[in-house]
Each structure stands twice: as C-alpha cells, then as structure tokens.
C-alpha cells in the first residue's frame, strides 16, 4: 500500500520542530509499524536526507523503548501492543498517518520522535525497590509463602514496561498509572511491607516534582497501556498514600 506520513521533525532539544510530510510506497500489510519506518529511513538515507530518529530496541513489545503517538493514540490504534507490535494491516492504502513524539513537559523531546524519559528513572530511584542487599544471605525463597492471588496480582502490576504511553495519552500528562503499578507490586507482597509508607510518599513526591499532571480518572491510560495495567493500581496507590499519612 501507499501512505502519506506526517512526522514531527526536530533537530535537537532546543530547536523548534514542525510536522513534515513524506510518502512511502509498496508497504506490505505484514510489516510492523517500525519496519515501515525503516523503509522510510532507508529511502531518506539513499536520497541524502537525515533519517527520522525514533526510539526502538527489542521489537517484541517488552523493552518499552518505542514511543510514538500515531494518529492521535500512543502506540497507534491497536490495543495491547507497543508500536513495534503494531502491524500495517491496521491501516489502509492511501491513508495519511500522523506520527508525533510522546508529549509531556516531563518528557522533553531530544530529537524528532525521541523523548527523554529519565523522569521515570528518578521516580524509581526515589523508592521503587526493596532495600535488601544482594549478598545472597537471605532466607530461603519458600520461607515467605505468598498467596497465588497476591503473587498474580503483583505480577500483573509488575508487567509495566515503563514506556510512558500512559503519560502520553493522559490529557493531564499524569504518570499515576506508572507509579501506581510500581507501588502496587510491592504493596501486594509481604517483602514490600516494611518500607511501604516511605516508598509511596517518596515516589509520589518525586512524581510531583517532575511536573507530571494530576489524575482525573478518565481511564485513557488503562485503555492505551500496551500491557493492560489496571486503573486499580492507581486506586491502590491512593489508598497506600492515605494509609501512609494516617500513620
């Protein structure tokens, strides 16, 4: 199929960017979206232009690196997928596709479609861990029985790939689904209880400091999340923070 692409081009963090139009031809419906971008870039390199910079790595939907806003949706129109898993069969011949970087004040653009998500790193550093030394001198793994239900729920929260689609999608650029997922994973496990109060307070404080917006419960993040992280995690974070403050 033949497509028209409108892509955000921006030389570097300080430059002013704009949408630029490109045409690509003979795109197979079995291609992934990023393979279509490869075709465009190969075309640009061959014609002496600078290819479009975009983040990507594993191309199997787990690393969380890819981060495009396609036709007004994070990771494009398909559900439960990252951009690398989005296939061109979701589009039609002759379509015009708008491709923008994830937009949030806390995710400044580095170049073209590449954004800086280190704000997520700092939130994790503020408390996204259990303070246990890696010496190996811990108790036997089976000495801490955990109900299957709690383990499964913690796993569901831990599935977050940190891509930032929740922030990009949210009309308020809120990071609460991301933070809620991490807070929840540890809140659901006995190992996480000791530091639970400090963890949620510190992570939320860092999240606020980074300039993410507030949650207004539109639920858009849950729908666009490639890993289906549930809104329940935000509610749990709210509970955890209230609990921490009532102590």
């Amino acid at each position: 199929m033949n497509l028209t692409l409108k892509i955000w081009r921006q030389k570097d963090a300080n430059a002013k960017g704009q949408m630029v139009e490109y045409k690509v031809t003979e795109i197979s419906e079995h291609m992934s979206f990023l393979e279509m971008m490869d075709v465009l870039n190969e075309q640009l390199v061959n014609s002496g232009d600078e290819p479009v910079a975009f983040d990507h790595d594993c191309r199997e939907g787990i690393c969380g690196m890819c981060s495009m806003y396609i036709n007004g949706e994070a990771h494009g129109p398909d559900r439960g997928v990252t951009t690398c898993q989005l296939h061109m069969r979701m589009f039609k011949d002759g379509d015009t596709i708008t491709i923008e970087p994830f937009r949030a004040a806390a995710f400044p653009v580095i170049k073209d479609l590449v954004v800086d998500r280190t704000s997520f790193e700092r939130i994790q550093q503020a408390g996204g861990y259990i303070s246990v030394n890696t010496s190996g001198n811990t108790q036997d793994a089976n000495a801490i029985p955990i109900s299957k239900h709690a383990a499964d729920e913690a796993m569901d929260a831990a599935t977050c790939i940190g891509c930032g689609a929740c922030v990009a999608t949210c009309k308020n650029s809120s990071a609460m689904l991301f933070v809620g997922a991490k807070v929840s994973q540890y809140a659901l496990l006995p190992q996480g209880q000791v530091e639970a109060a400090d963890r949620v307070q510190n992570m939320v404080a860092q999240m606020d400091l980074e300039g993410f917006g507030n949650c207004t419960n539109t639920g858009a993040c849950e729908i666009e999340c490639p890993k289906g992280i549930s809104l329940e995690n935000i509610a749990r974070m709210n509970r955890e923070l209230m609990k921490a403050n009532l102590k």
Partner: protein
Amino acid sequence: MGGFFKSSIGRKVAMALSAFFLMFFLLQHFAINILSVFSPDTFNEVSHFMGTNALIQYGLQPVLIFGVVFHFVMGFILELKNKSARKISYAKNHGAANSTWTSRNMIWSGLAILAFIVLHFIDFWFPEINTKFIEGDWSGLHDGEFRYFHELQEKFLSPVRVGAYVVAFVLLMLHLLHGFTSAFQSMGATAGRKKTLQNIGKAYAIIIPLGFIVIAIYHHFNHIH
C-alpha cells in the same frame, strides 16, 4: 498530614471529599424540592425550617459555600496545573478512542454549572439573604402565607429560565456521570466494588438531575395563579 494535601494525590482526595459533600447536599436539596410537586404545604414547612434554623443558616450554610468555592477553585488550579504538564499539544489527538467526552471535559461542564449557580444565586439566594439578613424578615411570610412555594412557581414561569435550568442540569448529569465514580476512585475504592459503584453512580447521575428538570417543567406547566 499537611503535606498530604499538597501532593497531587492529596489534592485529588480533597476534590473527592468536597465532591462527596456537594453530592450529599444535592441529594437533600432534591429531596426538599420534590416535595413541591407532591405537597406545597410540606415544601413550605421544610423550606421554612431550612431557611430559619440557626444551625443550618449559621453553621451549615457557610460550610456549603466553602465546599462549593473550594471545589471550583481547586478544580481550576488542577486544570491549570494539568494544562501546564503538556507545553506543546498534539497535532492530532484521538481522545474519543480511549475515554468518554464527559471525563475529558469536566472543566467545561463544571464551568457551565458554575454559571448556573450564579444564576441560581441571583434568583433565590440573594433575595433570601436580602430578606433575612438585610431586611431582617425571618417570618417567611408574604401576605400572611408562606412565600416559598409561591416564589418557586413564579420563577418557573419564564420558559427561558426553564430552558437554562434544563441545560444546566443536563451538564450536571454529564459532570456527575464521570464525577461520581471518579471521586470514589480517587478515594481508593477497590476493584471489587467498582462495578457496584459505577451502577450507583450512573443511577445517581441520571436520576437526580432528571428529577430537578422534571420539577422545573412540572411547575412551568402547572402554575397556579
């Protein structure tokens, strides 16, 4: 605890708490208003009690005003803050793909409700304050009869006002359709209760504003001269 209400989540909780309070107020307001359809006398009596009881007038009324102002001011502050969390907006954004119109436009439905409240104050509240606190007339009487029911009917004579009233309550309905469950989510309601809360929320959001609309239309067409 002071720090809590400065945090993003604390502010959400504050919004939710003020919302609960306002929703409770709305419910009792409705309960009183609907009396006007069934029994003008009971309506008059209850209105008189509400309008003259010291606890309500000096205690709850300021709290209510504070609640309304707080909910609006906080709503605006959050909206501004949230807007500033995205400096450059998307060239193309497909919001409808992942969220409801009502959830994305709480600020607009809220503003419309605010405009209505201003109208409502001009219509009812300012004259009430004037009568009671400036003129010092706490009798509730007009020509020897309770004036409340009569005043109510008077107001609904104008089709324009009834129209504005209907529009405002439709917007309130939209505001509540998202706001009710949203408040519970902010307070950390568990997933297990989500479905029930959604159903109650829907019922509340539809029944209450619809009821107010019915009352207005009823009085418009059943005016006793």
